[in-house]
């Protein structure tokens, strides 16, 4: 299999998940698309470096995490603006599934940067071992973080009294 075919397979397999990660991270569909694109450019540029020490998914998600963390430094103010606008645009009563999901994305984007990343991976049902490998956090520390983030996210969501 040549690099092009391998890349296409990787994109087909992980593209959707990475986009959701970026979306949960930024709460902004257009920015998420940018980050997805940037992630896969980095994947293409670094494919030769992949030695198989980790799984492809771990490796790609790690690139996505790095891309998000580095990118948000520049975009932080814009993201916060979009986020606040979006929250303000939410109707008083949320009735539809789409509105609930919209609120969920916005609540995630209120968490600290690395927390967004971790909780998105948790919600994607990634095993703790893999999340630890992606983020470089020890499994024990990760468990503590996840416990706290779950609690925090649920509190933020419920504070809007949507369910």
């Amino acid at each position: 299999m040549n690099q092009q075919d391998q890349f296409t397979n990787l994109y087909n397999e992980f593209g959707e998940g990475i986009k959701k990660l970026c979306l949960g991270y930024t709460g902004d569909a257009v920015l998420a698309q940018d980050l997805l694109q940037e992630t896969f450019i980095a994947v293409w540029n670094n494919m030769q470096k992949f030695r198989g020490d980790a799984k492809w998914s771990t490796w790609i998600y790690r690139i996505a995490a790095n891309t998000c963390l580095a990118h948000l430094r520049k975009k932080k103010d814009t993201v916060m603006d979009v986020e606040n606008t979006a929250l303000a645009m939410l109707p008083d009563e949320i009735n539809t599934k789409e509105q609930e999901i919209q609120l969920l994305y916005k609540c995630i984007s209120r968490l600290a940067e690395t927390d967004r990343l971790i909780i998105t991976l948790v919600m994607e049902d990634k095993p703790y071992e893999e999340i630890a490998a992606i983020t470089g956090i020890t499994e024990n520390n990760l468990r503590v973080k996840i416990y706290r983030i779950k609690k925090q996210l649920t509190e933020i969501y419920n504070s809007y009294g949507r369910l």
Partner: protein
Amino acid sequence: MADFDALKNMWQQPTTENVDRILPPANTSHHSAGLKMKLQREQLLGAIMLVITAILISFMALYGNFNFVHWYTYGAMVLVCIICLVQTAILLATYKRIKRIDETALPALHLQQWETYYAFRKKQIRWNMPVYYILLNIAMGIYFIEVFEGRPIINVTILLTIYFGWMLFSWFYLGKRKLKQENARLQKIMDELKAIEGQLGLEEPILS
């Protein structure tokens, strides 16, 4: 009241297309290529412009039929070319430095690489621009000796006023403003990187 599993179920339900539709459109005017690519491109474009400048000046010196009498006037043109090429080398070295940042490293290490780059860049812009300006003006000064020789004093005064006016404006206004902005931006980025590194750090267990 929602528990976390309910939120997770909600998360796993939609496709990205649905989410694209329900999220408000972002202001795309601020969007650009990736941070790393953009920084690399800035360095590369600067280097290309300087090489073009050096080629043009070399071409003028060789085929411009200026018929300068003094060797040092041509020497000044060569000096400008050398300064441009040295600056090109500096820009290309910076380009390579950015390129070396490893996106596949663990996040903490990746952020540390950015922090190292920004610290390096902060130091670099502090000395690089003054040295570049000084050398360029020395070369231009040498060049002007013959160019202004025998010309009416009023013409020389006007040309020198325009030249120094532009140099002072670009140094004290444009240059200083750019340096101040870049310094502030680098400082902000470094502070934020430190904050993120802190987030990745050890966390105390929560007792409930």
